[in-house]
């Protein structure tokens, strides 16, 4: 462990210390594998990759969350030991404009048991830290990935559609395109040409998953696929029949309207509980569990800080599949550039090697955007 930095006259060290954080001094170079596995190949374009002496690939850390999680895993018993960490240092990202390195500080709470309380504590701590760094007129925007996921389930959408919409969440253009795609009447029997012969067609039309899977099993064996290496016959046959069913249906107008109405919700946090309850009631959807969590979190936030500058947006989220719940973003001083971003990532530790999901939430603060003149509102990149 290391001593805390003296940023803002030691104010951050005090704040994060009071929140129970251990300060970490993490390596700049990390194996590239965990970053690609968690975020997907797409992140490769935005990270700096280099090689070790025997060809192993490293990257300059593009963020601190994954290094902190790996540290937590390395010290053992991740599921049982709740821990809080703080850090400060440079992160490195390729980007079209601006410097490829920037100074960040942040906080991660791993293994906490009380989602609502931990969420509220992290949000309040981020706001306090930014205020301690001298920023004023904070504007906070929050979203809830868990609530959106629950909505997709309550609407009883097919799994393939849920997956598609979940990974569009927080990317408005992609969401719009995917909603339009699901709403258009499908071409009947799309994919029929992929069927190999009459035997396949008979099994498919009978909806006989077992018979279809047996045919695919034979095919995989005949084609020399090593058993157990990739997608198996049951999975392929199951998805084939799902797609066949989907090709005869489409997102109905009522469901589309509900989704669009939810994604358009944007209102002060204080009004969100009532509005969401009304939304679920009017739509006849059972969202009791996730709405209770939402209300508990909102109450916990209200106990810690003023909420008049916090807005909830139904469509605010992140497309990555390891984010699971609260997401937030903070701006300040009337500028559009985000100064802090945070969120709950209960699925990340498992992706990095933990035996089971480990609840976790954290945030990062852009020190490079604090204490310097900022882009006036409307001109900055988000």
């Amino acid at each position, binding site marked *: 462990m290391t001593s805390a930095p003296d940023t803002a006259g030691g104010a951050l060290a005090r704040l994060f210390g009071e929140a129970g954080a251990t300060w970490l001094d993490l390596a700049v170079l990390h194996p590239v594998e965990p970053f690609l596995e968690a975020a997907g*190949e797409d992140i490769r374009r935005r990270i700096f990759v280099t090689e070790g002496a025997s060809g192993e690939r490293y990257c300059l850390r593009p963020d601190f969350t994954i290094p902190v999680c790996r540290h937590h895993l390395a010290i053992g018993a991740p599921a049982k030991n709740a821990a809080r960490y703080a850090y400060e240092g440079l992160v490195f990202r390729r980007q079209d404009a601006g410097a490829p390195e920037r100074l960040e500080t942040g906080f991660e709470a791993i293994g906490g048991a009380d989602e609502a309380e931990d969420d509220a504590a992290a949000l309040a701590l981020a706001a306090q830290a930014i205020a301690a760094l001298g920023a004023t007129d904070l504007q906070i925007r929050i979203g809830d990935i868990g609530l959106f996921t629950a909505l997709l389930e309550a609407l009883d959408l097919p799994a393939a559609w849920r997956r598609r919409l979940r990974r569009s969440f927080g990317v408005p253009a992609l969401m719009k395109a995917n909603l339009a795609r699901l709403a258009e009447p499908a071409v009947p029997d799309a994919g029929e040409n992929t069927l190999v012969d009459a035997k396949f067609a008979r099994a498919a039309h009978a909806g006989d998953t077992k018979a279809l899977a047996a045919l695919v099993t034979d095919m995989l064996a005949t084609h020399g696929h090593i058993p157990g290496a*990739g997608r198996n016959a049951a999975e392929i046959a199951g*998805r084939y029949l799902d797609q066949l069913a989907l090709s005869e249906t489409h997102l109905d107008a009522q469901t589309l309207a509900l989704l669009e109405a939810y994604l358009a919700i944007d209102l002060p946090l204080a009004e969100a509980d009532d509005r969401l309850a009304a939304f679920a009631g009017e739509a006849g959807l059972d969202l009791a569990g996730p709405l209770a969590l939402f209300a508990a979190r909102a109450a916990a936030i209200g106990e810690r800080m003023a909420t008049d500058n916090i807005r909830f947006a139904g469509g605010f989220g992140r497309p990555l599949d390891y984010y699971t719940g609260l997401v937030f973003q903070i701006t300040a001083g009337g500028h559009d550039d985000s100064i802090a971003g945070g969120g709950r990532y209960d699925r990340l530790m498992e992706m990095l090697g933990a035996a089971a999901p480990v609840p976790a939430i954290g945030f990062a603060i852009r020190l490079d955007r604090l204490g310097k003149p900022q882009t006036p509102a409307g001109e900055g990149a988000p």
Partner: protein
Amino acid sequence: MSDPLVIAIPSKGRMQEKTEALFKAGGIAVEKPGGSRNYRGRLRGVDDVEIAFLSASEIARELAAGRVHLGVTGEDLVRETVPDADNRIALASPLGFGRADVVVAVPQAWIDVSSMEDLDDVAAGFRAGHGRRLRIATKYWNLTERFFASHGIALYRIVESLGATEGAPAAGLADAIVDITSTGATLHANHLKILDDGVILRSEANLAVSLRAAWPAPIRTVAGRIVDALPVAEIAGGLQRAFARMDIPAG
């Protein structure tokens, strides 16, 4: 003596044969003094021209760096190996040979997958079912990343494959591939199928012009004369368009 015009042509295989045949059809003989092991040559009866015999991917890199003026290489290699290719290299004209498509292919046994949209869905559900991301074997990293990104697919991994890529899915080294194919026969023999919208690039050999090389007037004149002689429609116009792009002041 002034600097020569440097033309890079493929140093081996069918690309070399076809390129030399093209020059011959234009009445230009490519000479390789000292036999086949020499990597510099000339054009018979033409002064001020140097021929560089290079591999097709080296040609793309040398064009990008401005160390050769003209080169014959595949569009796939230009797009794959050269960052910011459009600002470094102009393709004057396709040459009618070296045709090959860069495609996304999956096992034929994946009867449920026929489009990139299907692949996107399979990739998204992959980790939950298999404990790892979907793997794509390819040597075309950049083309794959750009194409998948354009289809909104992020949740996959590339595994580098420098040979026999088409065998990777059956061997369990990857789930699907991005590879080059001219007739599809190799893919078919390996029980793979091309996705309906899985053609990333329809490539063929091109006369490529370096936008980064020095192009003083005497070199342009020599290049113009040689290119005019080649029996390829529109190729002279392609060269002039490349020159015109270089003449636009920077900024």
